[in-house]
C-alpha cells in the first residue's frame, strides 16, 4: 500500500491587487468592478479602501492634509495604510478569500516597496494596477463624480468640494512617482488614458492574467446600461417556460411603449445607445419599435438566449412538478447549480455570459432586451448579488431597469411601463405556480450599492 503522507504543493495562490494612481483616475471604480467580477465568477474577493480607514479619524479632511510636507497628515495616512494592510493580511490568514484589492493612491516607490515586502512575507503575490490619465476632460468628469458621491465631501458645497479636491490632487502630484524601470521586477499593469495604451509586466500566474484581461476591458467614461425583459409572451400567458413563442398583445403594447419609457428614464442628449437582444423571437419583437424609432444599431446575441430548460422546455411548473418531482425539488434546493436535464444551470449561464460581460464593459450605452434568468445573472454582476440569491430575484415584466456605474457602486432606477402582465416569479419551496412577488418587496432595491 502506498502511504499518502507526503505533502505536495497545492495550487491556491493568493493575490493582492494594489491600485496605484492619482485621485480621480478611476481607481475605486476599477477596484469595485474587479471585486464584483471575481465574486460573480465564484472567486472570493474584497476591497480594502485605505481612505475609509483614514476617515475613522479624519472624516472630511481639507486638501492640506494631503500635502507631503504635512507631517501630521503623513503620519495619519501611513497609519491608515498600516491598518488596512493588517486587516487584509488577517483576512487572507483566516482563509476568507483569494484576491484582496488595496485601494489607495500608493503613489510612492517607498510605499509600493513596503506593500510588496509585507505581502511577500505572507506568501501573497502582488499585482500593481496603475491608472494614468492626462485627458483633462476625463479627469474633470471624474472629479465631478467624486465630489458628488465621495463620503469625503458629503453635504458640502459642490463648487467648493471640487476646488478642494483639485488642490488635494495637486498635493498628491508633488510626491507622485509612476511605476518605472526600477520596479520592473514587479508584476504590474499600467493603464494609460483608460486603456488606450496598456503595459503589462511580468505576469506570473493564470489568475493575474485573467484579472488583467478583465481590467483591460474596463473604461471609466460615464454611461448607463438599461435592462429589460421581453414583453409578455404567449408562453408567459399559459405559464410555460422556454420555447420560442411570440409576444402577446400586452407584450406588443410594451414593445410600442419601450421607446418612450427609455426617454423617460433619462437619456442625455446626443447619446448613442446600442440595442442587444437574444436570438429568440420575443426579444427581437420587443426591441422592434425601439430600433425603428431611434435607428440605433442592434446586435443579436446567441449568448443572451434564455436558460435552456432541456426536457422541461415548453412545460409549466405544474407539469414539471408532476413529471419530474425529484428535479423540481432539487432545483429549489440549489437553484444556482441545478441543471435541467439536457439543459443548463444558472452557473452554466454565467459561463456563457462571460463574453457578454466583457463586451458590456468595453461598450458605452447599451440597452439589453433579454430573458428572466439571463437578466438575473447580468443584474447580479452589476449589483453584486450573491449566488444563493440571484436565481430568486424578482425581475418583473414590462419594467425597464437603468443601471449607472458610479465610483462607489452602481446606481439603479426602475421604470414601470404601466402595462399589465402576468408574473413569472415563483418563490422558493412554494407550489408549482407563478405568483405575485410579495408586495412589500416590490420596490425595495435588491442589492445595496
Amino acid at each position: 500500500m502506498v502511504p499518502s503522507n507526503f505533502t505536495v504543493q497545492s495550487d491556491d495562490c493568493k493575490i493582492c491587487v494594489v491600485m496605484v494612481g492619482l485621485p480621480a483616475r478611476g481607481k475605486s471604480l476599477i477596484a469595485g468592478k474587479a471585486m464584483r467580477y471575481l465574486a460573480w465568477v465564484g472567486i472570493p474577493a474584497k476591497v480594502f479602501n485605505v481612505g475609509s480607514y483614514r476617515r475613522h479619524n479624519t472624516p472630511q479632511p481639507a486638501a492640506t492634509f494631503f500635502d507631503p510636507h504635512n507631517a501630521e497628515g503623513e503620519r495619519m495616512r501611513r497609519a491608515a495604510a498600516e491598518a488596512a494592510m493588517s486587516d487584509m493580511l488577517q483576512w487572507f490568514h483566516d482563509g476568507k478569500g483569494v484576491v484582496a484589492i488595496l485601494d489607495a493612491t500608493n503613489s510612492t516607490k517607498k510605499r509600493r516597496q513596503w506593500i510588496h515586502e509585507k505581502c511577500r512575507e505572507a506568501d501573497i503575490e502582488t499585482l500593481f494596477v496603475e491608472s494614468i490619465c492626462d485627458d483633462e476632460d476625463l479627469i474633470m468628469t471624474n472629479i465631478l463624480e467624486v465630489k458628488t458621491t465621495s463620503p469625503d465631501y458629503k453635504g458640502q458645497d459642490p463648487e467648493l468640494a471640487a476646488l478642494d479636491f483639485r488642490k488635494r490632487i495637486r498635493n498628491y502630484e508633488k510626491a507622485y512617482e509612476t511605476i518605472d524601470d526600477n520596479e520592473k521586477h514587479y508584476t504590474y499593469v499600467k493603464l494609460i488614458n483608460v486603456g488606450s495604451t496598456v503595459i503589462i509586466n511580468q505576469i506570473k500566474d493564470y489568475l493575474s492574467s485573467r484579472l488583467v484581461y478583465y481590467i483591460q476591458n474596463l473604461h471609466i467614461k460615464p454611461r448607463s446600461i438599461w435592462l429589460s425583459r421581453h414583453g409578455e409572451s404567449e408562453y408567459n400567458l399559459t405559464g410555460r417556460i422556454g420555447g420560442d413563442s411570440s409576444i402577446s398583445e400586452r407584450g406588443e403594447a410594451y414593445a410600442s411603449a419601450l421607446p418612450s419609457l427609455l426617454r423617460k428614464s433619462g437619456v442625455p442628449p446626443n447619446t448613442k445607445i446600442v440595442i442587444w437582444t437574444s436570438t429568440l423571437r420575443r426579444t427581437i419583437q420587443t426591441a422592434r419599435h425601439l430600433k425603428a424609432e431611434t435607428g440605433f444599431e442592434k446586435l443579436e446575441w446567441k449568448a443572451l438566449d434564455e436558460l435552456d430548460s432541456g426536457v422541461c422546455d415548453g412545460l409549466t411548473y405544474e407539469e414539471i412538478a408532476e413529471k419530474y418531482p425529484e428535479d423540481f425539488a432539487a432545483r429549489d434546493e440549489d437553484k444556482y447549480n441545478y441543471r435541467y436535464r439536457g439543459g443548463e444551470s444558472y452557473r452554466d449561464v454565467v459561463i456563457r455570459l462571460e463574453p457578454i460581460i466583457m463586451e458590456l464593459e468595453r461598450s458605452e450605452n447599451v440597452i439589453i432586451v433579454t430573458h428572466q434568468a439571463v437578466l438575473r445573472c447580468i443584474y447580479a454582476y452589476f449589483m453584486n448579488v450573491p449566488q444563493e440569491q440571484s436565481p430568486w430575484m424578482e425581475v418583473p415584466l414590462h419594467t425597464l431597469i437603468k443601471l449607472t456605474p458610479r465610483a462607489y457602486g452602481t446606481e439603479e432606477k426602475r421604470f414601470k411601463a404601466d402595462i399589465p402582465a402576468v408574473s413569472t416569479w415563483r418563490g422558493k419551496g412554494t407550489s408549482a405556480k407563478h405568483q405575485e412577488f410579495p408586495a412589500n418587496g416590490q420596490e425595495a432595491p435588491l442589492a445595496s450599492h
Partner: protein
Amino acid sequence: MDTLLTAEIVANSPQFRRKSSIFVDAIHDLPEKADLAPAQLYSTESGRLFHSGRIVIITVGLPARGKTHMSVALARYLRWLGVKTRIFHLGDYRRATIPFGEDMPDDYFYVNASASSVLLRQKIVRKCREDIYHFLNHENGQIAIYDAVNPLASGRRSLAKEFAKHDIETLFIESWCDDERIIEENVRRVKISSPDYISWRPEDAVKHYLTRISSRIPQFQTMEEKDLNYIKMINAGERLIVNNRSFGYLSNRIVFYLLNLHIKSRRTYFVRAGVSREVGSYKTDSSLSEQGDEYARKMTDSLLAHREAEKQDMIDRGDPSYEPRPLKVWTSTRRRTVETAKYLYDRGYMVRQRSQMSQLNPGVCEKMSERRIREEFPDEVAKHELDPYHHRYPRAESYHDLAVRLEPIILELEREQNDLLIIAHESVLRVLYGYLMACNAADIPFLEFPRDEIIEIIPESYQNEARRIHIPDLPAEIIPASPEDLKIPVPSSGVVSPIQGLGSPLDGAATPQSGYRTPSGLRTPREPERISQQHVEDVV
C-alpha cells in the same frame, strides 16, 4: 520553418485538405465537419462568434523571435474556443513560388530592392492575400493569421489600409527581443537543425545564421504606429505593450492568451493514474492498490530512463552541455493520481495538485455497469451515442463541460516553462491531448490511453508531435482503457489509440494503421510521421 510539402499544399492548392492523423498535430488542417470546437459555448449562423467581425492578425518581427510559434499557439487556442482561424505563413508562399534549390534574390528584403525583386515580392504577397480574402469572405473564416516579417512601418500601414478597404480589422502582434539568450536559444532550437548546418558547431551555426539575417534584413522598425492596433511582446512575454485603438472582444482575449504564452520549448508527458483499491467508485476517493503502486514505480523508472536516454542522445549528437529542462509533476487532487506521483516526489521532483484536473463527473452512472446504464437509461444512451462529446448523463458532466472547466489548466500549461508530467484520469488526458494536438471535438471521447504508455508531446514551432514511450512488464489486466472506470457507453468505433486512430473517421475508413497487435488486442501505432525541417529558414 516548415516543410516543402506543406508549403506546396498551402500555396498551390488552397482547397486541399491533408488527411488527419492523430500522430500529427492537426493545427494546419481545416476541420471538415462544421462541428462545434472543443470549448465552444454556442454556434451562430454566420459561423462567426462574439460579433467580432473578421480580423487579420499580422505578425511583426525578425526571424528567430518566435513568430511562427506564437501564430500556431494562438490559432490552437482560438480554434479551441470555436473561432474559425487559419494561419498563412508567407514563407510557405515564398518557397512555393521560388523553385526548390533556387535561392531567393539577395535584395529580397531590401528597401531599395531591384525591380525584379519587388515584382517577385508583390507576386508572393498578392497570392497570400488572395487566399486570406477567400478564407474570410467565402469560407466563414473569422481570423486569419498572416505570419511574415513585416519589418517596415510603411508596409504595415499600407497592409492595414488594404484590409480596411475590405472591411477587415487588423491586429499587429510584434515579437521583440533584446535578450540575446532568448534569440540564441530560438535559433538553436528551430533554425539550425537543418541539413545545411550538419557538422557545424552549434555556436558557429547560430552566429552564421544571425549574420545572414542581419545582412538580409538590414532594416527593421519596431512598432510605434499609434494609429494601428498592436500588441508588442517583449522578450518572450516578459512584458506586453498594448496599443488599443479599437480592440474588440477577441483582441482582448488574445492579449489574455498571450499573457500566458512563452516561446520556450518544453515537453509534456501524459500518464494515467494507477489502479486504485476500490474500483469504479467516483465518490470514495480511494488509494492505490498494490498493482497501482507497482505501476507508479515502473512508470517512474520508464520515464526517467527515457529522459536519460534522450539526454545521452543529444550529447552524442554533439551538444555536450545539453541538459533537459527540469521536470515538474501535476496531479489532480484525487488520491490515486497524487499517489501515482509518489516515486517522483521521493526523488525530489516537484509535485503540484490541481483541483481543476479532477475527472469527468459520472453523475448517476457512478458504479453502474454498461449493461445497467443501458437498461436504466435507454433514452440517455441513445442521445449519448448521437453526440458523445456534448451529451451529459443525468447529474454528470459532458466532455464539453470538462473542456470549459479545464481552461485555466490549459493556460497554465502554456505558461509552464519546465517539462511537465500530467497524471490524471483518462477523461482529463483526452481533453488536454485534444487541445495540444488540435483534435476534433467529436473524436475526443474516443481517445484511449493504455496504461503501458507514456505519451510525450514535443512542441515544434510549426506543430506539435506526439510520441509514446512504452512501460514494460505491466500486468496485462491493468493496461487497457480504464478497467476500473465507469463504462459510460460510447458507440464502438474503429478508433483506438490517441496516437493513431483519429484519422480514420475522417478518411471514411476505419482501417487501422499497418500495425502490430499487442496481446491485449490494442493496436500499436506506427512511428510518427516526423515532419522535419528542410530549410534553413524562410528568410535566409
